[in-house]
C-alpha cells in the first residue's frame, strides 16, 4: 500500500510536470512568434522610411537643380542675349546701312526679344524669383492671378504670410499649392477654388477646396500618382500631415496641418 501510494504520487507530479513543460513550450513558441512578427514590422517601417527619405532627397535635388538651371538661364543666356539686343540697337542707329540690312537687324532684334522673354518665363517657372524677393504671400497671389488670367478658374483666397518658415520650406508650400491647383484643373475640371492659409504659434494650416469631379480617396491612397506622392513627401518635409476628403462629383478638400520644426 505504501509503495502504491508512492507510485501514484510520483505519477500525479509527473503529470503536472508534463502539463507545465508543454504549456511552457507553447508559450515559448507564442512569444517567439510575436518577436519575429515585431521584427518584420520594424523592417517594413524602416523600408517605408527609407523610401520616404529617398523621395525627400530627390525633391531637394530637384529644387536645387531647378534653381541652378534658372540661374544659368539668367546668367549665361539672358545676359548674352541682352548684349546681342543692345549691339543690334547700336547697329540700327548707324546711318550707313541699307534697307535690307536694316530689315535683317530688325528681325534679329525681334527674335532676341522673344527669346529673352521666353527664357525669362522658363526661369520664372523653374524658380519664382518673387518668392525669394517678396515672400510666399506675394508669390502665391501672383500664382493665383496667373491662373485666373489664363483659365476660367475663380479663386477665393485668404493667405497669411508664413514669416517663421524658412525660404526652402516656403518653396515647398508654394509647390504643394501649385501642384494641387494643377490637379484641380487637369483632373478635377474644377472652376472654383477656395484656399486659406493661416498660421498659429506652433505651426500653420492650409485648407484647399475645389468644386471638381472629385475622386475616391481610398483608391488614390492605394495608388498614388507622382503628383500626390510629391505633395505627400513635401508635407512630410514640412513636418505635417495631409488629410484628403472627396467624393465623386462633390469636389475635394485637402487640409494640411504642419508644425514648425524645432530648429525653425
Amino acid at each position: 500500500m505504501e509503495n502504491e501510494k508512492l507510485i501514484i504520487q510520483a505519477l500525479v507530479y509527473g503529470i503536472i510536470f508534463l502539463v507545465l513543460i508543454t504549456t511552457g513550450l507553447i508559450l515559448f513558441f507564442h512569444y517567439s512568434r510575436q518577436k519575429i512578427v515585431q521584427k518584420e514590422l520594424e523592417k517594413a517601417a524602416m523600408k517605408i522610411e527609407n523610401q520616404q527619405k529617398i523621395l525627400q532627397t530627390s525633391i531637394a535635388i530637384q529644387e536645387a537643380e531647378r534653381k541652378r538651371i534658372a540661374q544659368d538661364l539668367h546668367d549665361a543666356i539672358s545676359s548674352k542675349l541682352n548684349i546681342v539686343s543692345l549691339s543690334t540697337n547700336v547697329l540700327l542707329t548707324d546711318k550707313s546701312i541699307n534697307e535690307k540690312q536694316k530689315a535683317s537687324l530688325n528681325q534679329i532684334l525681334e527674335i532676341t526679344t522673344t527669346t529673352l522673354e521666353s527664357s525669362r518665363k522658363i526661369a520664372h517657372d523653374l524658380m519664382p524669383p518673387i518668392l525669394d524677393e517678396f515672400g510666399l504671400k506675394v508669390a502665391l497671389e501672383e500664382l493665383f492671378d496667373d491662373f485666373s488670367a489664363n483659365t476660367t478658374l475663380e479663386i477665393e483666397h485668404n493667405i497669411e504670410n508664413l514669416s517663421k518658415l524658412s525660404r526652402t520650406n516656403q518653396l515647398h508650400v508654394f509647390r504643394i499649392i501649385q501642384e494641387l491647383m494643377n490637379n484641380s484643373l487637369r483632373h478635377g475640371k474644377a472652376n472654383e477654388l477656395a484656399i486659406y492659409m493661416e498660421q498659429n504659434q506652433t505651426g500653420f494650416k492650409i485648407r484647399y477646396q475645389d468644386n471638381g469631379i472629385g475622386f475616391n480617396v481610398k483608391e488614390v491612397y492605394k495608388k498614388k500618382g507622382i503628383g500626390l506622392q510629391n505633395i505627400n513627401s513635401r508635407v512630410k518635409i514640412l513636418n505635417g500631415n495631409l488629410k484628403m476628403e472627396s467624393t465623386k462629383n462633390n469636389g475635394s478638400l485637402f487640409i494640411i496641418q504642419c508644425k514648425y520644426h524645432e530648429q525653425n
Partner: protein
Amino acid sequence: MNLIDDVLHKLSLILLITNSVLFTYSSFKLKIKAIKYFAIYLVIVFFVLTSSILIISFYKELHIKQNNLFLSHFYFIFQFVFLSLFYRELFTTKQKNWVNLTFILVAFVLGVQYINNISLFYKFNLLEILITSFPLVIYSIIHLYNSLGKTGKYMYINAAILIYLSVSTLIFILGNLINTVDKSLSINVWLLNKVLYVGYLTVILIEWKKSLWKTKN
C-alpha cells in the same frame, strides 16, 4: 470524490457531443479538409466513449467481470489516423511525406505485433500507445514551428493536442500499472485525466468559436 468524477464525466460527454456536432456542421459548410478530418476524429471518439459506457453497463447486467480496454485500441488508432490527416493538411509538402512515412511505419509495427501476440488486445498495449501518440505530439510541435513566421491556423486545437496528448500518453502508458494499484488511490490519476480531458474539449470549443463561428454566417 465520486460526485466530482461523475460531473466531469458528464461534462466531457456534453462537450464532446457539442464539439462533434459543431465541427461536423462547419466541415459540411466550409469544405475545409483539415476540419473534416478533425470532425471525423471527434465523432469517432464520441462513439468509442459511448460504446465503452454501454459495454460497462452491459457487463454489469450480466455480472461478468470483464474490462472494456479493447476499445482503447480503436481510440488510439483512429486518433492517430485522423489527427495525422488533420496535421497533414496543414503541413508543407516535405512534411506531408514524413507523415505518410510515419503512417506506413506505425501500421507495419502494429501489424507485426498483433500477429505475434493477439492477447494484447485485452489490455493497454504500451507500444501502440507510444507509437500512435508520440508522432502526434511531434506534429503539433512542427505545427508550432511552422507558425513562427506567420499566423498559424488552429493554434488552440494545436495547443490542446500538445498538452493533453503528452499527458494522456504518460497516463495510459502507466495504465496497466495503475490498474494493479488499489482503486482508492488510482482514482486520483483517472480524475486528473478527466479534468485535463474537459480542459482539452473546452479549448477545442474555443477554437471553433474563434475561427469557425464567424465564417459560418
